[in-house]
């Protein structure tokens, strides 16, 4: 039996996906199905004076038009599910359809249900809404100022919460040799999963059950929240996500659309489908990032970092989204020291509501915002004291012997050798020679830059006890049931909900390895609350670390039971039986008697002769609650050239040396890293949401918002070190977010390095040609 863990097996899920046989939510077609279209506010902030629906209702093919007033007494409010402790968080009442005030462009005020989607669109255009427009505010730091319009009357100064961590560091900063101050605009990003969100709801009158097929990363969380909002008990509500076309955090949240569709399906006794357009996806599907950060770093002249502190204004949008408040607090503030031994740190975060699209997790969720600030500050510090940024990193990176390492906020970094990844990255990029080349090129008026990011992140979310302590309104353990069938084939039910990450393959590799059977004999089932007892879904790079851990434990339970049955059959004591490569045999006498795993499975089901106290069948269920987060880390290097005549930045090389613990499928891992890199580089160079003063989204389509394309990139150079997580049964850490977390500051550091001869210290992302060109022009002008 060849080893399957660690092999680059082709993906099982691809067999359907490459043939157009995937089943995405919008592919559903049910008998009698009707179609919903939302009527959305064109204003960011307005009173709703009246909604005129008569014309729409009279259009042939229209079944119904419902307004906010129709729904407000029928449905609960959409809650947030993350309430950071000691933050005085105020809820933002969020009805599924707005009935008195709209708070961002796209806020839905009515829904049209029609026989086909074209008619639904026509009718939606016929709904006339009388608005009384009001002043809007979109910038989080502006929004807390005096006299600004309030998003929710009950939230003073638009501050939904104030959360801080760490001591007052004034003394440290007052006495420090060197203090570097910098403001960063961590711009708003629009996730743009390629599959727009969709929902199909069907009510079954016979069973009084509602089934909701929806584009979600976490069907069980959806069921829990929807149950409360709809008033349908959990056992009468089924949430299904079969194939989901990417999420990146934007399919975590519970949205108004699926609430409305579910309610309407029950009301109309017809299956109802809703599918958003890309334009709606831009407007209403959660955005990411969006901080204004005031950062300070204190250090010594010889390069030791003593303290870092940040005051951040985090834009949460018009309503607190499902995980929204947790992202700029727990997932950001607790890790602002990054991969460095910095004795003192603090974070002071204002969670601010504005008249903009709600903000929630986006790939990395909080950790990119933290990593960017510390990685940029290390470079700013290095430049200030005249040291090489690599030397400052080498001096301050947490040492390998320090693990487990407790950071200033009490996080325990599990394992690592940060210096090693940096060393490999330096070798790969040929650092010393590249610096010389840079000097030469500058003499010719050519500007290349080298940028580093030596990052660590926390993922594998996470211990439930910690989840509770930090205000996440759920657990973060994961479930697995491994069901061996009488023929020895296996079905695995996981509470994780992969949507492109490849765990139908990765998970099968875990089970195949442990049971010694072909991966093709194993099926992974996910994304259906009726088939899987409970689970918390896929986000925070938790699927393999936590969901995989549960599968491992469930598989081990099966092996334990099967061993008892095998011993009974072999007529030896259990301690004399060994199991390897799918075969049970008597220790030391392998030739004597053997039983295949499949034969034992059949015996378990026939139950003709089972040992005393052993129940029939062969199935294992485990609920795995990790002891800690996992902490992937690594060193990334970007090499860029900047054309100072045009401002164009070209990425010449990108080197990523990551340590994500043990690797189950290197092909899938590389794909995850590449995808993350492109999103992180996208933030650095191309992507950024812009609102005008009235709250209109100016970057509301793929024409206006630059999602990166193939021709923007060189080939990536990747390498790994392997430092297993010591507390995780598989030794894995997580890889889904590393690329997005690490790459953004590497790129910006590289561009700033290229521009250093011009005295340019920082530019706000994305580093578009216009911004770079303007800065260079200004610098040249200033000199002249």
């Amino acid at each position, binding site marked *: 039996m060849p080893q399957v863990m660690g092999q680059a097996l082709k993906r099982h899920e691809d067999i359907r996906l*490459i043939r157009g*046989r995937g089943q*995405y939510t919008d592919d559903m077609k049910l008998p009698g199905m009707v179609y919903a279209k939302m009527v959305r506010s064109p204003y960011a902030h307005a009173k709703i004076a009246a909604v005129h629906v008569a014309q729409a209702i009279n259009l042939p093919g229209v079944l119904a038009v419902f307004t906010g007033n129709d729904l407000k007494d029928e449905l609960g409010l959409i809650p947030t599910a993350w309430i950071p402790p000691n933050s005085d968080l105020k809820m933002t009442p969020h009805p599924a359809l707005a009935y008195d005030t709209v708070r961002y462009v796209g806020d839905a005020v009515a829904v049209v249900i029609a026989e086909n989607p074209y008619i639904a669109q026509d009718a939606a255009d016929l709904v006339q809404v009388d608005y009384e427009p009001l002043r809007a505010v979109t910038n989080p730091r502006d929004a807390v100022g005096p006299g600004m319009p309030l998003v929710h009357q009950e939230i003073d100064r638009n501050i939904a919460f104030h959360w801080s961590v760490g001591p007052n560091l004034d003394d440290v900063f007052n006495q420090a040799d060197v203090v570097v101050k910098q403001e960063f605009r961590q711009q708003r990003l629009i996730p743009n999963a390629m599959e727009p969100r969709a929902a199909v709801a069907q009510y079954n009158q016979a069973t009084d059950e509602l089934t909701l097929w929806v584009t979600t990363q976490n069907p069980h969380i959806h069921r829990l929240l929807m149950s409360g909002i709809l008033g349908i008990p959990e056992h009468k509500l089924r949430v299904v996500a079969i194939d989901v076309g990417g999420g990146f955090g934007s399919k975590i949240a519970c949205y108004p659309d699926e609430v409305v569709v579910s309610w309407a399906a029950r009301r109309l006794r017809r299956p109802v489908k809703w599918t958003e357009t890309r334009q709606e996806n831009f407007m209403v599907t959660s955005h990411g990032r969006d901080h204004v950060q005031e950062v300070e770093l204190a250090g010594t002249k010889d390069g030791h970092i003593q303290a870092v502190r940040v005051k951040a204004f985090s834009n949460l949008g018009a309503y607190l989204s499902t995980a929204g408040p947790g992202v700029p607090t727990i997932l950001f503030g607790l890790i602002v020291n990054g991969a460095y031994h910095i004795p003192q740190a603090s974070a002071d975060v204002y969670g601010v509501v504005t008249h903009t699209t709600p903000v929630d997790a986006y790939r990395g969720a909080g950790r990119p915002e933290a990593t960017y600030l510390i990685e940029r500050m290390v470079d700013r510090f290095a430049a200030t004291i005249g040291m090489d940024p690599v030397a400052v990193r080498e001096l301050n990176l947490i040492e390998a012997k320090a693990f487990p390492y407790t950071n200033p906020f009490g996080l325990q970094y599990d394992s690592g050798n940060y210096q090693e990844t940096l060393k490999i990255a330096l070798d790969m990029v040929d650092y010393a020679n590249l610096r010389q080349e840079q000097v030469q090129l500058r003499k010719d008026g050519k500007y290349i830059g080298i940028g580093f990011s030596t990052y660590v992140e926390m993922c594998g979310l996470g211990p439930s006890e910690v989840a509770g302590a930090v205000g996440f309104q759920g657990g973060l353990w994961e479930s697995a049931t491994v069901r061996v069938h009488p023929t020895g084939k296996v079905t695995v039910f996981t509470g994780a909900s992969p949507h492109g990450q490849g765990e139908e393959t990765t998970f099968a590799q875990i089970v195949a390895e442990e049971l010694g059977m072909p991966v093709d004999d194993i099926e992974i089932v996910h994304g259906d609350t009726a088939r899987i007892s409970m689970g918390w879904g896929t986000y925070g790079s938790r699927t393999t670390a936590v969901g995989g851990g549960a599968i491992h434990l469930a598989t081990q339970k099966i092996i334990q039971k099967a061993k008892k049955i095998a011993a009974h059959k072999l007529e030896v004591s259990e301690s004399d039986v060994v199991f390897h490569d799918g075969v049970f045999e008597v220790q030391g006498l392998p030739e004597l008697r053997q039983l295949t795993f499949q034969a034992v499975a059949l015996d378990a089901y026939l139950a003709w002769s089972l040992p005393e106290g052993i129940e029939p069948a062969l199935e294992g269920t485990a609920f795995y609650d990790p002891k800690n987060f996992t902490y992937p880390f690594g060193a990334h290097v970007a090499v860029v050239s900047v054309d100072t005549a045009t401002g164009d930045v070209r990425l010449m090389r990108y080197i990523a040396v990551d340590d994500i613990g043990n690797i189950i499928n290197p092909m899938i891992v590389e*794909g995850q890293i590449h995808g993350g890199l492109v999103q992180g580089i996208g933030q650095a160079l191309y992507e950024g949401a812009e609102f005008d003063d009235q709250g209109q989204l100016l970057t509301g389509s793929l024409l206006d918002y630059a999602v990166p394309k193939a021709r923007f990139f060189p080939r990536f150079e990747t390498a790994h070190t392997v430092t297993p997580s010591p507390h995780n049964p598989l030794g894995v850490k997580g890889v889904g977010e590393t690329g997005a977390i690490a790459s953004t500051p590497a790129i910006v550091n590289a561009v700033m390095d290229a521009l250093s001869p011009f005295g340019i210290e920082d530019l706000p992302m994305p580093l578009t040609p216009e911004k770079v060109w303007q800065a260079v022009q200004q610098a040249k002008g200033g000199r002249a």
Partner: protein
Amino acid sequence: MGELQTTVTMTVNGERVTRTIESRVLLVHFLREELGLTGTHVGCDTSQCGACTVLLDGEAVKSCTVLAVQAMGKAVTTIEGLETDRLHPIQEGFWAKHGLQCGFCTPGAMMATTYLLSQNPNPTEEQIRVGLDGIVCRCTGYETIVRAVQHAAQLMNSSTQTERSTEVG
């Protein structure tokens, strides 16, 4: 519903189909809703993402920007028509080289690749990256798609391609 109805006939994946539809129906909706060919996806509304790419008389088009009536009398090939009794080398390439993750853009990306390779059977990496400018993938970072296209090109140029193909389901 007062909308103009038109009877359209076209060949889809080798089969002649005739339907009476509203004149305004987009080709992608015709394929998905009328014919149940849901392998072709709708990813945007501005012809940017390419998830809906199909071949129209052998040429790659974004079926969200073509009316079904414009395809009248023409031959449409969708992802469902790419394979015969075996996987098409482009499907093999995407599978072998991890050219997909969530799979949503993938059918369109493979149809765009079909057209690209029909025009240039031996594209360079640069030509592939530029040639796929009409598709947006948010998962892969594109490099594995480039490898997938290169692998497909090799298979298609190899005389032993049928031996290398894999039968599935």
